[in-house]
């Protein structure tokens, strides 16, 4: 679309209506004026011809040609009268006779004829009537007045009319022109009043855009809105200028701060003992710091712009360049330990942190290498290792040697018991026994640590089913948790048989230490032990809702004898070697323990062990059915009858079932059970019972009564039992009974 300026728009808006109006008005006025003029001419001509006819009456009557000539001459002096013809009653021409024929032809019977050039009028010359009031004449019998005396024909020229018309046209055009001109000027003037300030504003905005923030628009327009606009612009400009100034001040401040900080950094870089170098894509150094420079004589020339293989060179240089390339390609920062020959002619070892440096678009442009000379550090580490090993070897040796007198002491304590001591002495013996026991434990633990440290213990790898570990935890710690009124939950996947490749003793020692610690430091709430598959690993986690560990304390918890909140070294809280042992044990299994904790809320310790892929298979079909069910979800709402003559075992089994949510009736012999047991979902019986009936017989009898689901337990491996079980229909579990196995057996019935 074509674009117009405001000025053009104003012109159009102002001129078009005026033009239209002017043309219409002009047309109307000119037309009406023309018709007025024509009417006037016609009227005047009519008057003239009438007058001539009247005045010629007597001349024609009397045939007075002189008089007629006089009248005609007078008529011809009038404006526009160009020719006069007078005819007598018989149409004989009296005056201007030559034209009469032509006129008559034009007029035919009409009284007027006109074309663009002239107007012809005809008027009969009639006698003037004078009323004589003559009575006798009123009869009208001899009226002779109807006949005209003659005819006057007059030709009126339209030349003057045409002139007048032309003048009118000229004037009206002139007036229209003047109106248009005035409108044009007015519109231009009005347009300018708007465009000039707008142009001013536009200039100001341009200058403002070019950075002249002190630009202001002078408020001079007579158009209110433009003044508002200008005022608005000025306000905006002022604010922008102000903020720009503030910004500049800030930038200046920041720049100064940056310069200071840069100076500081430079000082730091130049004075740091660490070597700093920047490598470009060609692996040439583009920057080295003074520490680096000091590595070689004439460091700058020798090192700047050189590859590591060129200077200082050495056996590791090619490997180092490969590492640098790797960082350039992968963008992953890494460490490199470089061994190089120093000025002093001694081999140095540097731990170099390689950091990729990127430009704004994320492309790696250089690699920063910050190196620290760890020659001394390595030397002291080796020293420490050597000392540790010595310590462990010493401890191991000492431990072995300490055990001999300790065993003797224990024997002596036992011996003391048989010397019939007094009650007082008996108390002392008991305490001594306890002290010896603690000492024994401590010694065991210390020996364990030393064995681990000394590398005496070597892991014996085997396939371990996770269920086995879980069952062991259940048996070992569920009663303790119950006693402390703590929740104790075990979680593991039953969808697949998880088998790890590890050392069971070391694993148990790790879990034992973690779980017992959890139980120790957990006053209320619960403990959860979980084993989950994570890709090719099993993640073991021990959760507790205990007191938690402050973040700053976490690195220390693995130290020997470190105990939180036990600066008095209260022995009842343990000896503080648990986590130290666990850490050492897990590191032997090539893993490590992680700890996360929220102080006051609880902690979680976790470690990973590799999956034995050859053994771990998805459990499927009927075999999987019982496994699909979590241990905890089997018992709730179920009734159990336990028949066991060993009170300890019975109690432990009953506690375990109750803890799992079951309702348990416990009997110590078969007869009691037969008589008193209520109907239950499951029956668990020992083989060897105190009464007449053994377990198989009991279960058979109960089965006869109401058809039961049951499991037989036994610790007996005698030949007679094995013979008996040949006829046994019940599943047999050998003690110590694994809870998971027990439930699995019950569940499949």
């Amino acid at each position, binding site marked *: 679309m074509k674009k117009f300026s405001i000025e053009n728009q104003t012109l159009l808006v102002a001129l078009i209506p005026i033009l239209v109006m002017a043309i219409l008005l002009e047309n109307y006025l000119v037309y009406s004026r023309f018709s007025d003029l024509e009417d006037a001419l016609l009227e005047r001509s009519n008057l003239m011809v009438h007058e001539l006819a009247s005045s010629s009456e007597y001349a024609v009557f*009397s045939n007075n040609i002189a008089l007629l000539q006089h009248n005609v001459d007078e008529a011809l002096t009038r404006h526009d009268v160009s020719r006069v013809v007078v005819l007598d009653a018989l149409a004989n021409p009296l005056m201007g006779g030559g034209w009469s024929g032509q006129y008559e032809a034009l007029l035919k019977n009409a009284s007027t004829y006109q074309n663009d050039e002239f107007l012809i009028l005809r008027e009969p010359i009639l006698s003037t009537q*004078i009323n*004589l009031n003559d*009575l006798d*004449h009123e009869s009208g019998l001899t009226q*002779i007045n109807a006949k005209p005396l003659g005819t006057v024909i007059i030709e009126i020229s339209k030349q003057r009319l045409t002139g007048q018309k032309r003048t009118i046209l000229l004037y009206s055009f002139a007036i229209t022109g003047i109106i248009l001109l005035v409108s044009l000027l007015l519109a231009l003037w009005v347009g300018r009043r708007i465009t000039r300030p707008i142009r001013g504003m536009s200039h100001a905005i341009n200058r403002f855009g070019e950075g002249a923030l002190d630009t202001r628009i002078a408020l001079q327009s007579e158009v209110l809105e433009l003044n508002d606009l200008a005022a608005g612009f000025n306000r905006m400009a002022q604010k922008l200028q102000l903020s720009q100034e503030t910004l500049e001040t800030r930038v200046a401040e920041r720049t100064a701060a940056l310069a200071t900080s840069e100076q500081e950094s430079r000082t730091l870089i130049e004075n740091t003992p660490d070597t700093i170098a920047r490598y470009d894509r060609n692996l040439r150094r583009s920057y080295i710091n003074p520490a680096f420079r000091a590595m070689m004589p004439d460091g700058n020339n020798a090192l700047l712009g050189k590859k590591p293989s060129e200077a200082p060179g050495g056996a590791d240089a090619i490997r180092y360049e490969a590492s640098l390339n790797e960082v350039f390609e992968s963008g992953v920062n890494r460490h490199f330990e470089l061994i190089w020959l120093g000025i002093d002619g001694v081999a140095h070892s540097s731990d170099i942190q390689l950091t990729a440096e990127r430009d704004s678009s994320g492309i790696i442009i250089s690699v920063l290498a910050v190196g620290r000379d760890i020659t001394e550090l390595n030397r002291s580490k080796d020293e420490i290792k050597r000392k540790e090993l010595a310590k462990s070897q010493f401890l191991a040796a000492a431990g072995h040697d300490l055990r001999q007198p300790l065993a003797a002491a224990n024997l002596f304590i036992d011996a003391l018991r048989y010397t019939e001591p007094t009650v007082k002495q008996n108390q002392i013996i008991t305490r001594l026994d306890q002290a010896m026991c603690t000492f024994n434990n401590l010694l065991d633990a210390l020996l364990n640590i030393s064995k681990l440290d000394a590398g005496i213990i070597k892991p014996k790898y085997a396939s371990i089913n996770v269920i086995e570990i879980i069952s062991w935890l259940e048996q070992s710690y569920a009663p303790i948790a119950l006693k402390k009124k703590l929740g104790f939950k075990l979680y593991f996947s039953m969808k697949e048989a998880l088998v790890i490749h590890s050392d069971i003793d070391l694993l148990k020692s790790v879990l034992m230490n973690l779980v017992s610690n959890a139980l120790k430091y957990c006053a209320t709430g619960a403990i959860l032990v979980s084993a989950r598959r994570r890709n090719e690993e099993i993640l073991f986690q021990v959760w507790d809702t205990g007191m938690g560990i402050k973040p700053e304390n976490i690195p220390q918890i693995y130290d020997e004898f470190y105990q939180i909140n036990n600066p008095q070294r209260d022995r009842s809280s343990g000896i503080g070697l648990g986590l130290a042992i666990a850490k050492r044990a897990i590191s032997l299994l090539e893993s490590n323990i992680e700890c996360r904790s929220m102080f006051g809320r609880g902690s979680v310790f976790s470690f990973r062990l590799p999956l034995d892929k050859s053994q771990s298979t998805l459990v499927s079909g009927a075999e999987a059915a019982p496994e699909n069910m979590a241990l905890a979800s089997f018992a709730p709402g179920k009734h159990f009858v336990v028949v066991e003559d060993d009170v300890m075992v019975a109690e432990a089994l009953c506690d375990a079932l109750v803890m799992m949510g079951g309702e348990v009736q416990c009997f110590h012999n078969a007869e009691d059970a037969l008589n008193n047991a209520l109907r239950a979902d499951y029956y668990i019986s020992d083989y060897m019972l105190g009464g007449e009936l053994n377990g198989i017989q009991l279960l058979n009898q109960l089965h006869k009564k109401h058809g039961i689901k049951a499991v037989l337990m036994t610790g007996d491996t005698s030949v007679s039992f094995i013979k008996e079980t040949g006829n046994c229909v019940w599943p047999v579990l050998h003690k110590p009974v694994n809870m998971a196995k027990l439930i699995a057996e019950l569940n499949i019935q």
Partner: protein
Amino acid sequence: VLNHFKLFFLMLLFYTASPAFAQISNDSIQVTIVLSEKRGSYEEFSNALDALLIARHIPHRVIAATDPIPSSGLLIGVGTKAATAVAASDATSVLNVLISKERQLSLLHDFPARAAAHTFAAIYLDQPISRQAHLIAALLPGKKNVGILYSSPPQAPMRQTLKALNLNLQEQAVDPATPLPEALAAILSRSEVLLALPDAPVYNDTTIRNILLSTFRSGIPLIGFSQGYVKAGALCAVYSTPKQIASQAALLILQYGVNPQQLVSQYPLEFEVLVNEQVARSLGIKVKGASALHDEIDIKEAP
């Protein structure tokens, strides 16, 4: 003076005869006034006559020329139209008024039975030529040649009458061979005064202006025969008013009552003289006053 005397005589006749006439009229005179038109001079005449007849207890009625004309009694035809209608009717006794002598004669010519019966009379509108001659003599003592224009020759013995007053008659006929402008030019070249006659083809509303203009141009005064001529520009005229004719008609009705066979056509007895002094001044003629002229004519007409 003579005029007053005449009037006195008439009045005397009226009043002395009245009881006897009343008696007679009541029994024998039936007057019907037939009007050509109910306007102007006709109405003026009718009203004047009506008043006089009422005073005389003569029964009468007024009808229009288009109404059925009664056959008995005396019929007064007012104007040419009424006169023509009455002439055509069965009416026995007729007295026409406001009619030119020429018209009355032409009616008698048209209806020959009327002429024989002697009961078809008129009071002419025309003034007697002698009265006109007296007027010219009194008004323009120096002018001898009196011109007349006519379409048909006048009946009256005009030449003798004028001769008696030492005036010469100049005549000019208007006919197709000599149209009015030429006839006028011819007569004006021979006359000192033009006397208009009640000859309608020559003197009418249409022609009068140009006739008057021609006479003015020639410096010859025109003598008219009615008020209208004087108003239109004639120098002078003798004429009778409708009222004067009504009085004369009433007298004739009374005479008819006495002797129904005595109806005789006659000129108007009473007259008026009217002078257009402006015209006289324009023509440069010194004229006497109208009443002086009237008296002079009266004296000259006295027997």
